[in-house]
Every structure is written in C-alpha cells, then in structure tokens.
C-alpha cells in the first residue's frame, strides 16, 4: 500500500489524504480539501495526484456486476483492473476492445484518460467501447451516462481526468477472440520513412501496429527501428497458454538511475540488431505482445529516486514526417534518449471525450530519466516543435507541460471546466489552468 498516492513516474511527489472506498452505493466522503479519484496509479505525472487534498482510492471497488458470455457485455465496478477482466474473459473467448501497454489500469482510470492502444486505427479509443457508466458527484447525485443518455456528461467524463465526479461502475463491450494467441510479424526499418511506409501498408490488414525506434542514434541511423504488426490468431488446439509465470520484480529503488547515456546507447543498438533484416513471423501469447513490461514488477524503480518523465505527443498527418524527424533529431542530439520510444499512427476514428488525447496523426511516446533542468529544457524544446505543428501532448503522461500549451492542445478545456465537480481538483489541473 505504500505506493498509493504516487504516480507511475514517481515525479512529482505529492502529499494528500488517502480515502479508501469499498462500497459503490455510499456517498462520497466529506473532507476539508478537494477530491480526486485514484485507481491504480499508472498515470505517469500529476494527473492522478492532488497535492494538499484527498485521493478517493477506488481500487477496492473491484466487483464484477454481470457478464454475458454470448454478447460480450461486461459490467463491473470502476476499480476492476484490466488484468482481472482478461483473467475472467479470455478463457470464455473475449478480449478487451482496447488496451494500453499495461494491464494494471483500472476501468475508471481507462475512462478518465480515454486510453488507446495498438489498434487505434481500427477501434479508436477505449471510450468508444464504453456503453455506460454511473457518475457520482459530491452533491450526492448519480447519473447513468452513455452516448445517448446524459451524453454531455459522458463526453466530459471520458478523458475528463477524473474531474467530473467519481465513476462507480461501467458497462463495456468486449471483442471476440478465438483464444489467447497472437500472430505477429516483426520488420526492421532503417529510417523514419520506412516506418511510414510500413504503417500505410499494414493499417488495413492488421488490427495492431506499433513501432519501437532507436532514439540514441544520429546521422544515417536516425529514426531506425522495429515495426510490429499483429492480429488475434485463430484457435491453436495443440498449445496451452503458459500458466501464470512468476513475476520478476525490482525489489528496491537504486540510489541513482540505471538508465544513463551509456546504457541507453548500448541497449538501443543491441535491441535494433537483435532483429535480423527482413521479416520474422511468430505466434505469441497476448501477454508479452501487449504487456512486455508488466512481467517486471515496479520497473519504474530503475530510474532511481528522482523518477522519470514520460512524453507522449501526437502531430497531425500533414506535418508528421518533418515533425517526427525534428523531434528525434532533437532527442538524439541531447543524448538524453529513451529506451522505450514508441511510434504509432493513429487512425481517424473520432475520440468520444471532450478532452480525449488521440486524434489523427502520428504519436510518439518516450521516457526520460529525470535529470532536473536539462530534462525539463529538452521537453520544452519538444513542446515547441509539437505546438508549432498543431499537435498535442498526453495529460496522463505529463508532469510539466506549460499551461499555454495545454490550452492550445485542448481548446475545449474551458467548456469542459463547467462539468468539473466543484469539490474535485487535481495537481495537474491546477498546474495547467491556474
């Protein structure tokens, strides 16, 4: 429990009262400061923190309410984890309609951040598969919200960063699968143009596409990387899913970050060359495909006590190539690269939330060990590039974007603010709007 009240990047630190919730029928607790729902703490920056106020710890609202194995409609409380849903539904032939890169997020958190995954070009965001949810406000009112009913509250709450009230339960539409297996293809590409070609060629026939790029290399190797595309595999009667594998764990926080320019270059070069030229085909379980890092508990500790920062941006299609090139050049030149640099083309399916992040274009996600002013200055330079191109930065991963850019990235923020519960606030929201 010691990590409750921290964000995944372990930066910034906040001090707040933690109020555990265990009964979805109960009214919200009365405290002196402001409230913010907190699920499993997988947001990276300060959007899940409420310094000086209280967190409504909703992880123990973890009951299923109903599941129809014929239609794939699941109703559950908002603290249920994606991992718990998968454990229940995969053996019955269903899968999450959209999943981010960790399965340790709650349903409530997935709604509040309108999360996306590798199938964005086919399925849009998670919010598109939410059939309904109950929104509990500090005045005691409860609304069942759906795209048809209280549609304005639905739109404000999906991607609404937990500010519109507490989501107590939700109904989601799952998607059919034959089993837990994925058919994957892995391609190596030598530069950014290779990524765009592969994306274009894959979007129609592959449900899941994503690329890793080497952010440490410059010159001719700039923007090289590995492209993965996949579909759910047909049933494999001969193979059995691996039994729950034992999870490794980072047992303690090392005194300094293990990620430094030296280890970073070595990792990126090795990782790139591990994949031979050409294409490899493989069938894999969904776990390593979707959640490669979930196998290592508390992996965020490797960045040391100062934590790390994620940066995820999207730039519109017209500006994609030039803009990505500028971003990667800036990062490579800084020597501060990232070992998890992920590139993906978003599709043009509209996001349902007023403040949803995903929009058509190319998205790049990176993490940086927090090295103080240097890191902040680098991210400011990236922001200038993204803002000039008409792009946006993802609040769920942010701990530092300037308010002027937030307001430019999310022009609907002002109309959204009318839906904020008067008792609710977050460190993030105060930082970007006050």
């Amino acid at each position, binding site marked *: *429990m*010691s990590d409750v009240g921290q964000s995944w990047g372990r930066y910034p630190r906040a001090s707040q009262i933690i109020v*555990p919730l*265990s009964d979805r*029928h109960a009214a919200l607790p009365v405290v002196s400061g402001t409230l913010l729902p907190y699920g499993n703490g997988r947001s990276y920056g300060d959007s899940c923190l409420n310094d000086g106020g209280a967190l409504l710890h909703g992880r123990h609202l973890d*009951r*299923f*309410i*109903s599941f129809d194995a014929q239609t794939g409609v699941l109703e559950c409380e908002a603290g249920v984890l994606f991992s718990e849903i998968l454990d229940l539904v995969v053996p019955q032939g269903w899968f999450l309609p959209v999943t981010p890169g960790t399965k340790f997020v709650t349903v409530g958190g997935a709604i509040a951040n309108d999360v996306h995954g590798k199938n964005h070009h086919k399925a849009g965001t998670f919010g598109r598969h939410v059939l309904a949810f109950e929104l509990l406000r500090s005045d005691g009112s409860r609304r069942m919200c759906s795209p048809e009913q209280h549609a304005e509250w639905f739109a404000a709450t999906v991607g609404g960063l937990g500010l519109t009230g507490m989501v107590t339960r939700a109904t989601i539409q799952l998607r059919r699968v034959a089993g837990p297996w994925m058919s994957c293809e892995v391609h190596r590409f030598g530069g950014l143009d290779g990524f765009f070609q592969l994306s274009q060629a894959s979007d129609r026939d592959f449900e899941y596409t994503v690329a890793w790029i080497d952010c440490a290399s410059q010159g001719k190797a700039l923007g090289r990387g590995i492209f993965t595309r996949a579909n759910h595999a047909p049933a494999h009667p001969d193979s059995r899913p691996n039994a729950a594998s034992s999870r490794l764990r980072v047992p303690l926080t090392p005194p300094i970050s293990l990620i430094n320019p030296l280890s970073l270059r070595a990792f990126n070069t090795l990782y790139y060359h591990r994949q031979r030229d050409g294409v490899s085909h493989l069938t894999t379980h969904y776990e390593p495909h979707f959640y490669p890092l979930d196998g290592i508990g508390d992996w965020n500790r490797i960045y040391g006590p100062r934590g790390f920062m994620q940066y995820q941006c999207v730039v519109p299609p017209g500006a994609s190539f030039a803009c990505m090139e500028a971003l990667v050049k800036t990062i490579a030149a800084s020597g501060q690269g990232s070992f998890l640099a992920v590139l993906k083309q978003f599709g043009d399916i509209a996001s349902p939330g007023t403040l949803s992040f995903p929009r058509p274009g190319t998205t790049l996600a990176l993490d940086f060990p927090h090295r103080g002013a240097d890191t902040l200055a680098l991210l400011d330079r990236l922001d200038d590039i993204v803002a000039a191109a008409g792009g946006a930065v993802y609040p769920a991963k942010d701990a530092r974007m300037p308010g002027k850019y937030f307001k430019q990235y999310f022009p609907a923020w002002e109309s959204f603010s009318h839906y904020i519960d008067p008792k609710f606030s977050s460190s993030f929201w105060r930082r970007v709007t006050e």
Partner: protein
Amino acid sequence: MQKVVIIGATSAIAEATARLYAARGAQLFLVARNAARLQDIAADLRVRGSQEVFQATLEVNELHEHARVLDAAWSLLGHVDFALIAHGTLPDQTQCEASVDTAMHEFATNGGSTIALLTAMALRFEAQRTGTIAIISSVAGDRGRQSNYLYGAAKAAVTAFASGLRQRMAKLGVNVLTIKPGFVDTPMTRDFKKGALWAKPEGIARGIVRAADRGRSVVYLPGFWLPIMLIIRHIPEFVFKRIKL
C-alpha cells in the same frame, strides 16, 4: 463441486476467500448482516464462476437465529464441504475499559457468537462425517496485550474452543482449521498506520484455501507470525509488564 458456507461474507478476508472458491465453480451460501452489500458480492461471485450463490442475513448476536440460517444452508446445499466463520469487529480497547456494556457486547460478537455457531455447526458436521470448519481467530488471541486485550480475550476463547472441537471431530473425519492472521489491510483496520508487517486480504485468502485443501489444523497467516508469536508468548511476565505492545 464444492459446497461452501461463509459467515461474515462481507468481510474483506471472507470476500477474497469466496472469490477463490467461486473460481473453482463452488456453490456458495453467504451469510452477513448487510443485505445490500451481500447482493453486490453475490453478483460478483456468480460472474467469477460460482455455480450458485445463496444469501442469508443474520445478526450474529441474535443466537436464536443461528439454527434458522444453518438449516437453510444445509437444506439448500445438501451437505457442506467447507464452512468459514469470518465475522468480527475490531473493538476500541479504551471504550471497552470504560464501559462494561461495550466490553461484554464486543466479547459476545467476537467470541460468544462464534462459539455458538461452532456448536451448532458441529452437530451438522458430526452427522455428515466429512468437511472442514475454518474459523478466523487472530494472533491477538495468543497473548493478551494492553492495546487490545478485550479482542484478544475473545479470540483466545475461540482458539481454545476450536482446539477442543478439533480433537472431538478428528475421529469423525471432520477437520477444524484455526486461522490466525496478523495485521491485515482491510476496511476494519482502515485507521491504522500500515507498515511492513501488514498483509493484503487476497494473500490471507490464498493461505486459508491452501490450509483447508491440505487439512491443516492451525495456521498463522502470513507464516512469519508463527515465530513472532512464539517469542511474544514466551516473554516472561516481569519483562512483559514493562513493555508496551
């Protein structure tokens, strides 16, 4: 298919245990005071795989109601493979010192009602000659400590009663399992500052199911409480009087 009765089914440890039995497809008979919360838990357990979930409400201190509820359980399930008595409160020790009524009421809830339920259940298990009766006692029952000796005394009574019952039932093929959890992070202990000794209800539940499957008699959960309590039980009184526990 296993048939399971749980008294105090809305407690965090009981709920986590019920989920493990639900995943095995067990038939469940849940007993608790709060019908609305029971309803939510029953729905959850059905989704998690339980073949059938029955519910009954009971105020455990109304001892004359016990037979009605147990009769319903046995008639709906036919027989019972696993019964878990998990209800309880965490009394405020200072209030128990100030008021005889509070002290006796808490003793009845945590000690007397459990002994009454065990007595009534034992008759039914004696007749069916199979199954496991599990009782959540506590490490607090191993030695009275000034911080919570009313609770400790009630749990000590339960532990001693279960020990005797185990001897009586052993030759009939019925196992009596005494569970002694240490500090568990549940709504019952929400106001405590949590440290390294605190366990999660899910871990305690796995320990309960494992112990029941293996036919164990007494388990400390997590297991590190066994050596800790061994030491605490053997601290001589002249030292014990001078320390604060």
